[in-house]
């Protein structure tokens, strides 16, 4: 397949993609949150309500203990927010392309910008919620090391890279096979319980621990807890592996997207 040759300095394409990203980001964020009456509050209400329910179930009903010397609230909040952010970002981005069908059919523009804008809008919003919740928890006396937020930013960035890769692949597949959206929900739900978000890795039986640790999200949860609950800000060897995994996910997702996106026009 021959590429269409489009002349002009490459910087042009980048400038244009940036302008488009800004436009699409604005389009994604307000239509979802500011457009509704409840507005921005939704970004906090859903995770806080979930946190409250988990707190009730695990500490009151199950009387679970062993949260690495931390309180359940702080222990779960630190990991739950990034997970919900990633989950929502993937779910929204996966169905983001059809919303731009009118543009895709009539206007030439880099389609991947749609996915980046969708992922960025969701993650940015939930990161803001994350900061608010951590500050509030600290204020009510939970053992949170706010300095850990310095490390949380690059950790979220690595997550964003992986989430973008997954979203690129899923959104491209969704254009052709509409079932992707429906399979995604239960799969993400199951993955959440297989990730040490509501429990520490130490409670997982030895035989299963290897499998659970292989989950890249386990690394993220682990590093976030180290930074925010214990105040450990140093880098580890495993971080390099995680960055490599995120890059690989992004590259693979983008490869799939680039292969499929020239055919969106006929299917959106």
């Amino acid at each position: 397949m021959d590429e269409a040759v489009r002349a002009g300095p490459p910087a042009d394409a980048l400038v244009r993609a940036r302008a488009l990203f800004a436009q699409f980001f604005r389009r994604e964020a307000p239509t979802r949150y500011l457009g509704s009456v409840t507005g921005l509050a939704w970004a906090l209400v859903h995770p806080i309500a979930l946190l409250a329910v988990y707190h009730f179930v695990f500490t009151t009903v199950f009387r679970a203990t062993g949260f690495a010397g931390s309180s359940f609230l702080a222990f779960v909040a630190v990991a739950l927010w990034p997970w919900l952010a990633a989950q929502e970002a993937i779910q929204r981005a996966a169905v983001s392309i059809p919303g731009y069908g009118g543009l895709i059919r009539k206007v030439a523009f880099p389609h991947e910008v749609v996915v980046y804008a969708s992922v960025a809008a969701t993650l940015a919003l939930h990161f803001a919620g994350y900061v608010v919740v951590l500050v509030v928890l600290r204020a009510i006396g939970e053992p949170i090391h706010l300095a850990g937020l310095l490390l949380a930013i690059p950790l979220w960035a690595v997550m964003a890279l992986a989430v973008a890769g997954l979203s690129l692949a899923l959104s491209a597949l969704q254009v052709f096979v509409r079932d992707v959206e429906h399979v995604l929900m239960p799969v993400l739900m199951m993955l959440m319980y297989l990730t040490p978000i509501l429990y520490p890795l130490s409670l997982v039986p030895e035989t299963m621990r290897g499998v659970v640790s292989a989950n890249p999200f386990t690394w993220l949860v682990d590093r976030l807890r180290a930074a925010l609950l214990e105040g450990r800000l140093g880098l580890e060897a495993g971080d390099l592996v995680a960055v490599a995994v995120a890059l690989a996910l992004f590259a693979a997702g983008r490869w799939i997207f680039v292969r499929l996106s020239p055919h969106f026009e006929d299917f959106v």
Partner: protein
Amino acid sequence: MNGERTATGAGGDSSSGPPLLELAGVGKDYAKIESRGGRVALVWDLLRGRGASSAFTAVDGVSFAMRAGESLGVIGENGAGKSTLLKVVAGVIRPTRGTVSVRGRVGALLELGSGFHPEYTGSQNIDLAAALLGVTPAELAQRRESIVRFADLGPHLDDPIKHYSSGMVVRLGFAVATALAPDVLITDEVLAVGDESFQKKCMAWMENYLAGGGTLLLCSHSMYHVQKLCRHALWLRAGRVERYGPAIEVTQAYLAWHEEKSGAGKARRPEVHTGEGPDVHRVRSLALDPGEFVRIGAPLTVRGEAYSPDARAPVVLIGLVRADGTPVYGVATDMDGVAPRRIAHDRYAFSLEFPSLSLLPGKYVVRAHALDPEGVYLFDHVELPLTVTGESRELGLVRLAHRWDGEPPAESPSPAATRPDTTG
């Protein structure tokens, strides 16, 4: 944006340098999905870098080049692949085969208002459209004024465009696309929308754009617009180039083909009806001089031989009909008091000259009939196709002698500007 556009005068082929736009062997296939699992199979094929296993070819083997200042009209029936071709040029679709090279900014008006978001205000949509067109904020700031002026929305500029009338959306779309000075402007039948005053504004803008050296790729069903705005035309038929050349020539060929097609049901193909048995008068041969193609105003001679079973001179009737069967003119030897020339005891030669053929360009059929000497029985006829060529935008079948009482146009850029649009 850049002031180095060289204006080429009408008819001047002096433009040099590489073409602004060049298509070489461009083809586009669309995947055909035949079953539920077909989509999964298609994704698998695409991921492996193969084309779809089952495809429909929308456009194939299209090549052309456009230099700065040229204008090309794409014509053809619905479903001929015009829109697909324009989308390929605009970069909306990547071609399955061949290459498209564009040097410069392409402005595409494939559907006015298609890049707009209904919840945004007119003003916000200008920002969005500019970003889509690849315009930098600094450049947009410079041109915002003229966009707002052309769109002429007044206080509605700050209302969400979902409250706009379609005419207002169209005005805004045209204003944005045109104000951003594309090197090549691609439009798909957009002149057909909007009210009359807006259409006039569009036409005036287009003429001005072309006069200023702009390059236009237009897709239209209106031969009037194509002839008025474009120097060249490309006729697409079933995805392939049927004809490519000067706009007048191609549009006339297209119209002639249409006439022929609409008349096809009446069996208007050139053919020979031989009479029953050897004992009737009939036309043995028929020829056109200079041939099938004659320029308007040039001489045409119809000659041939007729057979007579009883050695008496037959009456020969020559008729001209348009390709769809509409009779244009017919004349017989006996009407003018002549008889065919005898060349053998049963063969007669006839020759009819039109010193200056006043048929308008298009496709016609020449028919010769041999009648008995009394001119009563019409036994058979022989047909030959005739194509009248030439550049003319006159309407109808024949050029009638005429004279206007008027004065030469006062430096109007296009003498056709005041002609009423009766075509299309």
